[in-house]
């Protein structure tokens, strides 16, 4: 067989019933995950050479200290329902958050609503409002493909940089759980649709040492906090809520040696839900326009301008921009960046090793390099929204070495 080596190939070949199939049949075509009957799963290795890097994106997560703003207020006679400040969880909480915001809008019995902002939060809010029978106009500077939402990485991470424990208060975890569960249910209604807007993939973590969940006890030497500094100062200030939905979200399981496709001593596997941005946005936009929605390209300069809109109810979803537009200084920038490789359709898994990860989706392989010692603090307070190439190339090289090692171990 002259094709690209499959990771875990040797072991699989030994175990495969009817080895003749391997000789030249469809299963041996590179680019397809090989069928496998028990034993070590064989994976198509990711192609991680520098020529595959076709884009780099940088983005600011809108971490709001108290969690997303879902409050209401009156501006020039309009009811404004806020829906902004979703940190590193905007995609993941989009349906649940829209349900809460639209519910508050509906309570005032409008016929139509304006949505300001067309990122994942604004667009989802608009579609949810339409599903309840309202006429909706979106007003925004940019449509979703040009927003920060398209510069995320795209997995179901509802607890990522979503709030700080203290300012969020004791009620927030229940609201978060409600939004996370509702979103999860809605995403599942999008599985298997053409273009695969939502899909599950295997998610591997590999390590040289046994893999343990890292915890962040409060460091008493750090005396400042959000309350005194306006910014969180350590990881323990962040809300960590994921365990509340561990009953529905697949958790990592350690892989025994026979099931570990990588040439690394320790590995875990879980199933991760991810979002293909172009396919997902196309489906939402089709539904929005199909239901008669209108899009108006418009920039608002001051909250008072909302009073000029013809609609009586406004859902405000400007994301990080709300920090300036609404003067909400509790919205904290958390910088993050991703490298994007040419999509590899035969690869449907993600791999993480220490600080670096590669996530294969329909719209590309997403590379990230996150210093593990910083945890949630990485990028906090940093609003420099330009990508930096070196850490991405470094991540690619680190992961490429793991694939080389795994291929060697399998041979």
């Amino acid at each position, binding site marked *: 067989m002259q094709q690209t080596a499959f990771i875990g190939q040797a072991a699989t070949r030994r175990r495969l019933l009817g080895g003749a199939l391997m000789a030249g049949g469809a299963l041996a075509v590179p680019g397809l995950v090989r069928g496998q009957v028990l034993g070590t799963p064989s994976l198509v290795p990711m192609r991680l050479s520098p020529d595959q890097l076709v*884009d780099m994106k940088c*983005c600011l997560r809108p971490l709001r200290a108290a969690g997303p703003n879902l409050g209401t207020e009156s501006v020039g006679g309009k009811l404004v329902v806020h829906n902004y400040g979703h940190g590193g969880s905007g995609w993941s909480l989009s349906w649940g958050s829209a349900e809460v915001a639209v519910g508050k809008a509906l309570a005032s019995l409008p016929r139509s609503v304006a949505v300001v902002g067309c990122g994942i939060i604004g667009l989802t809010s608009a579609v949810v409002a339409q599903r309840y029978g309202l006429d909706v106009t979106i007003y925004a*500077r940019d449509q979703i493909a040009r927003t920060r939402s398209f*510069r995320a990485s795209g997995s179901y991470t509802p607890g990522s940089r979503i709030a700080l424990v203290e300012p969020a208060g004791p009620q927030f975890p229940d609201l978060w759980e409600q939004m996370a569960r509702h979103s999860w249910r809605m995403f599942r209604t999008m599985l298997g649709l053409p273009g695969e807007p939502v899909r599950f993939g295997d998610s591997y973590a590999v390590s040289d040492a046994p893999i343990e969940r890292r915890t962040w006890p409060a460091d008493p030497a750090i005396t400042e906090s959000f309350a005194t500094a306006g910014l969180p100062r350590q990881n323990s200030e962040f809300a960590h809520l994921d365990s509340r939905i561990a009953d529905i979200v697949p958790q990592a399981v350690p892989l025994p040696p026979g099931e570990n496709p990588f040439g690394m001593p320790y590995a875990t596997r879980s199933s991760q839900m991810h979002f293909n941005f172009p396919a997902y946005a196309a489906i939402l936009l089709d539904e929005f326009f199909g239901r008669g929605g209108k899009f108006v390209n418009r920039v608002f300069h001051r909250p008072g301008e909302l009073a000029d809109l013809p609609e009586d109810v406004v859902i405000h979803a400007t994301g990080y921009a709300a920090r300036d537009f609404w003067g909400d200084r509790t919205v904290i920038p958390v910088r993050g960046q991703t490298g994007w490789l040419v999509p590899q359709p035969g690869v449907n898994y993600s791999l993480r090793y220490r600080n670096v990860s590669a996530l294969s989706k329909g719209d590309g392989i997403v590379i990230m390099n996150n210093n593990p010692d910083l945890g949630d603090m990485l990028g906090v307070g940093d609003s420099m*929204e330009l990508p930096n190439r070196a850490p991405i190339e470094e991540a690619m090289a680190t992961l490429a070495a793991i694939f080389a090692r795994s291929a060697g171990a399998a041979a």
Partner: protein
Amino acid sequence: MSARTGQLVAALALVALGTGAALAQSRGGTGTGRYTAEQAAAGAQVYAINCAMCHGARMEGRGEIPPLTGRFVANWAGRPVADLFAYVSRAMPQHAPGSLAPEQNAHLVALLLQANGVPAGARELPADEAALQRITFDPPGPAL
């Protein structure tokens, strides 16, 4: 075209520009030379150091970052220059918002006006939000 019809066309064009332009005339729009070429030149220096890395040497923008010409006019024209001045003062440069002095921000606004086809003149653009509230950003409009 006679001089009279020419005037009429110009007047109609003004009406066509909408209430923004009409308002601009009554309150003093940028069409009448409200910043100096020196201010714009000073603005270009501030821009090169503080803004160009993100918005581009030609203000062309990039994936992450909006351009400061073209659709920029649609976003900001017809409104008091104070809005633009306040936004730049508060929110930019994005990695260090609010870090520039009022004069520098006025120079940057002068540069933005110049880059978008607004003519310079003899009067200085004030570095003061209240004064700028009375000056409207006139769109340069279609070449008449």
